[in-house]
Structure formats: structure tokens, C-alpha cells
């Protein structure tokens, strides 16, 4: 009785040990991915840091001058305040600057605007990113759905009216960049027909709640969403077609045909599901790209989004804001890349072996 007890403890410990070892071994592809992501994160941080170093002139002195003018404080005081607000001291060594920058990032401080009072990267993310994500993710989902339906059909029926129509749609829609589609749509539906508003995200006179507000937001978002989708549909359709063409050559499709299953069953149950797998990674990656916003599209529609803020920051040479937005975007991309890759290898174990 007495010497059995430690034995049991030992057994449990060994079991836990093997479990952890097995778990680590089974998920080693994941750990490798996370390691790579961390390295890329570090490189992106270094890149963002040196973005400031590349800049012309001395932004801190400029900022300090503005502060001393505005708050009527002596220049020394203003300079100290400026280095604190911008989280950057030009007189420190490179290592100290870098350490300060990284500690700021860890605390969630991505940077402060040099020209606009109380505008930080965090504020911009909070106020403008939702609008950008709202229109662009709706557009992404819409174009993804239409694209996979179109691509699947294009692969299954090689000849005929539908394929010719789809092909010419892809060429025409892909030939014009999305921001120019925006201009064309504004001209047709906004200016000539007056069906849709041509700028802004909602009527300013409206109360910010209830159904009228939601429908008004959707009403304003309609043209940008369509402009984004038109261009993306073709890409998804072509990707789906390529993937589906590969699946069509597989044995189980022949078997399904031999069993006498209907065309609709084959397409929905065998073809679509299997050819969707490789598209998931691209979908996740495209979602990550949305965080950058679309500077041109948002400028044309006068939509208050992340991208138009970014181009505004560039227009005014607001270096610290540019740096912060850039670093934020790359962090999101790296994270989304990691999630997409891991998801894909969990869904499809064949991927794990090759392609670290």
C-alpha cells in the first residue's frame, strides 16, 4: 500500500510527460511556424524602427517648436515633452532608441501624430479601422461567394454560353483597377442616376442608433462594396476554376459519375468542398490585406477609413503616424499569415510535411 503510492505518482508523471512530448511532436509544424512568425515580427519591428531613421530633417525639433508655440512653454521643456510624446530621443544611442521603441510597442503605443493634437495610431485604429473593415470584408465575402460559384461551374462545364460570358466578365472586370471602377460607379449611379450617395459613411443629421441608421450606413456603403467586389470576383473565380480542374481529375469524381450521381450532387458534394480547401489560405491572407485599407478607394469615395488616414499621413509627411500605421499593418499581416497557414495544415495534413 505504501510503496504503491509513489509508483502511481510516477506513472501519472510519465503519462503526462509522454502526452506533452507527443503533443509537441505532433504539433511541431505549428511551433516551427510560430518561430518563423516571431522572427518576421522582429524583422518588421526593426524595419519600422529604421523607417524613422530614414527620414529627412529632424522631426522631433519641429514637433517641439510647435509644442512650445502652442502651449507657451520654454523650448527645453517642450523638447523633453516631445521626446516623451513621440517616444523617440534623437540624442540617445541606437540601442536605447530601439529598446524604447520596442517597450512602447509592447505597451500598445504605436506612435503619435506630429501635427494633429491627441491623435495617436491607437485612436486611428479605433475610429477608422471598423469602417474600413466593414466595407472591405463585406465585399470580400460577397466576391468570394460569387467567385467560387462561378469558378466551380466554369470548371465543370468547359463549353457553352456561361463559360464564354464568365470569361469575358473576368477580362473586363479585371482590366480596370478597383479605384477606377469606383469612379465609374460614382458617375453612373451617383451623379447621373442619383440612386446612391457619392461620399461619406452616413448622413450626419441622423441619430446614431436604430434601423434607420443601419440602413443608411448600408446605403452609403453600397457603391464602395460593389466597386471592391467587381474586381475581386474574377480572381476568386479563376483560383476556384484552377483548383476545381485539379479535383476533377481525381478518381472519386469518376467513381461518382460511374455511380450515376446527378451533376448537382457531384458539384456540391464532391467538387466544391474539395476544391475549396486551397482557397482558405488565400481567403485568410486577403482578409489580412483588408487591414491596410484601400487609400485610393477611400479617397475617391471620401470614406473615413484606415487607408485614407494613411494617405493623409503621407501627404502631410506625418512620419511617426506613418511608421505606427505601417508597423500595425505588418503585425496584423504576420498574425493572419500564421493563422491561415496553421488552419490550412490542420485541415489538410498533407501540407505539414513539405513547405516549412
Amino acid at each position: 500500500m505504501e510503496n504503491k503510492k509513489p509508483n502511481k505518482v510516477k506513472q501519472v508523471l510519465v503519462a503526462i510527460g509522454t502526452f506533452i512530448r507527443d503533443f509537441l511532436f505532433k504539433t511541431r509544424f505549428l511551433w516551427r511556424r510560430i518561430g518563423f512568425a516571431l522572427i518576421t515580427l522582429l524583422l518588421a519591428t526593426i524595419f519600422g524602427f529604421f523607417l524613422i531613421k530614414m527620414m529627412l530633417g529632424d522631426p522631433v525639433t519641429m514637433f517641439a517648436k510647435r509644442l512650445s508655440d502652442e502651449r507657451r512653454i520654454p523650448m527645453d521643456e517642450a523638447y523633453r515633452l516631445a521626446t516623451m510624446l513621440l517616444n523617440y530621443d534623437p540624442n540617445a544611442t541606437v540601442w536605447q532608441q530601439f529598446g524604447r521603441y520596442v517597450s512602447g510597442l509592447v505597451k500598445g503605443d504605436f506612435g503619435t501624430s506630429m501635427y494633429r493634437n491627441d491623435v495617436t495610431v491607437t485612436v486611428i485604429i479605433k475610429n477608422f479601422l471598423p469602417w474600413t473593415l466593414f466595407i472591405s470584408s463585406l465585399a470580400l465575402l460577397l466576391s468570394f461567394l460569387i467567385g467560387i460559384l462561378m469558378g466551380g461551374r466554369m470548371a465543370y462545364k468547359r463549353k457553352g454560353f456561361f463559360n464564354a460570358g464568365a470569361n469575358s466578365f473576368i477580362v473586363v472586370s479585371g482590366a480596370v483597377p478597383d479605384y477606377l471602377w469606383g469612379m465609374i460607379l460614382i458617375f453612373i449611379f451617383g451623379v447621373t442616376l442619383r440612386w446612391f450617395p457619392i461620399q461619406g459613411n452616413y448622413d450626419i443629421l441622423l441619430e446614431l442608433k436604430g434601423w434607420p441608421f443601419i440602413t443608411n450606413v448600408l446605403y452609403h456603403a453600397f457603391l464602395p462594396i460593389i466597386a471592391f467586389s467587381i474586381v475581386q470576383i474574377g480572381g476568386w473565380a479563376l483560383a476556384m476554376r484552377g483548383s476545381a480542374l485539379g479535383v476533377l481529375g481525381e478518381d472519386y469524381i469518376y467513381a461518382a459519375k460511374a455511380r450515376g450521381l446527378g451533376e448537382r450532387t457531384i458539384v456540391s458534394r464532391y467538387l466544391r468542398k474539395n476544391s475549396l480547401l486551397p482557397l482558405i489560405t488565400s481567403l485568410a491572407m486577403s482578409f489580412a490585406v483588408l487591414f491596410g485599407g484601400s487609400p485610393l478607394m477611400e479617397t475617391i469615395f471620401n470614406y473615413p477609413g484606415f487607408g485614407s488616414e494613411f494617405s493623409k499621413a503621407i501627404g502631410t509627411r506625418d512620419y511617426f503616424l506613418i511608421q505606427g500605421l505601417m508597423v500595425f499593418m505588418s503585425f496584423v499581416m504576420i498574425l493572419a499569415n500564421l493563422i491561415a497557414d496553421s488552419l490550412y495544415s490542420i485541415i489538410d495534413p498533407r501540407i505539414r510535411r513539405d513547405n516549412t
Partner: protein
Amino acid sequence: MKDFKMRFKKSMIRFWKSFKSGAVRLYKTLTYNTKTKVGLAILLLFVIGAFIGPIIFPYNPLTNEVNKFAPPSAEHWLGTDNLGRDLFRQMLYGSRDVLVIALLTSIFTIIIAVAVGISSGFIGGMYDRVIQTITNLFLTIPSFPIMIIMASFFTIEEPVSFALVLSIWNWAGLSRAIRAQVISLKERDFIQICNVMGMRKSHIIFKELMPNISSYIFINFILIMRNAITASVGIMMLGLAAFEPSNWGAILLRAKDIGALLIPEATLFWLTPIIAIALFQAGAILLASGLDETLNPRLRRN
């Protein structure tokens, strides 16, 4: 001396024969299907228009306020802009820079991508890992914002620097695809045999690997040109890098600045560059997908 002459003659004949067979093959590839032919015709039209057009239709950049927003006529084929300058000639005149930028971007991008992709796939090991991490960085940091930043940091005043800005962040995806192809080719028998026979690395790379990925590279060449035009017009439309006011993007920027969308007479002002872009891009898409169908055996079978 006679011997040398004979040898020279023979080598010339051999060269001519290989050149002829190459030309015939190129001709056959380019006329294999309708898509390729239409795409090629459109692109050739643009090249001719860009380089010979300005000679036939000289562009007069002087402004003439009286003649603003003139409708299309025999003198002004597509009407005039807000300062009374001919739009058709402006578009022709501006297309040269646009095409040169696109071409140079393609060349730079392909050179970087091929060098990085092949070396990384061929050498492998630690070198491959380091290069892939760097490639990953280039892939994950979004390219368009970076281009905007670079365009605002370096003041762009001529096509070469613009092309460099456009290509420096665009090679990553292509180089990764080339690396994947090289890795799969490396396992194939003919490369293994070359290795066993102890052939030079340069021979394997240039004589064995390159011909197998050249069609892929060529198709990507056209697609990169396409993307370069979208990006360059976009950057010019944001008001960065406006070194030549008759560029398509610069025309669009001017149209946007005066609110041409709201002026009915100014429709052609903003529509002309859009149509030029659309035509060029459609030509590039058709040529690329036509070539893909011709050269890619998986698609050709059906």
C-alpha cells in the same frame, strides 16, 4: 584559313537554323489561339502608339482657356481638358512613360525574383532558410503602402527610379513560386543525371532549369507589367511622383482635383485615361491567359 571559313560558315548556318526554328516556334505559340492574338495585337497597338504616335500627332502643352472641355471633333478626337489641351494626344504622349515604367518594373522584378528563387531552390540548406525568412518579410508587409512611402521619401522624377520603387517590393511572391518549381524539378531524372555526370552548376541552371520555367516567367512578365500600371497610376493619382502631367495617372489626378465627375462636359477628361488603362490591361490579361493555355499542358489537353 579555309578551315576557319568553313567552320564559320557552318556555325552561321547552325545559328540561322536554330534561330529560324525558334522564330517558327515563337510564331506558332503566339498564333496558337485567338486570345493570344487579340492580346498581342492590343499590346502592339499601344507600343506603336506610344513610340510613333507622338511623331504623327505632336502634342501641344500650351494652355488655351477659351477652348476648355471642347467636345470631340476632327481636330480634337477626344475633346480637350480643363485647360483646352487635346486629350487624345495627351494620352498618346503620356503612354510612353507608362509603358516604359511597366516594362522596366517587369524586368527588374523578374531579375530579382529569378536570381533569388533559383539560387534559394538550387542551393537549399541554411541559405534557403535565411532567404525564405527574408522573402516572408517582403510578403507580409503590404506592398502598396510601402510603395507610397518610398514614392514620398525619394522624389521620383524619371521612369527608372519609379520602376525601382515599384519592383523592390514585388518580387517576393514570384520568387517563392520559382523556388517551388526549382525544388520539384531538382528531383526529376534529367537533373539528377546531370548531377551524376558531374556537369557544371551553370550548365544545369541555364541549360536545364531555365528552359523549363521560362514560359512561366514570361507569363508572369506580362502580369507584372499589368500590376505595375495599376500601381503606378495609383501612386500618381495620390499626387506622389507626378513628374509628367500627361501621364495617365496625372491626368486622373487633375480630373479628380477639379471634380470632373460632377461636370457633365468633362466626362471624357477622366474617361480617356480609364479606357486607355482598361484596354492595355485587357490586352495583357488576354495575352497572358492565352499563352498560359498554349504553354500549360494541363489546360491544353482540354
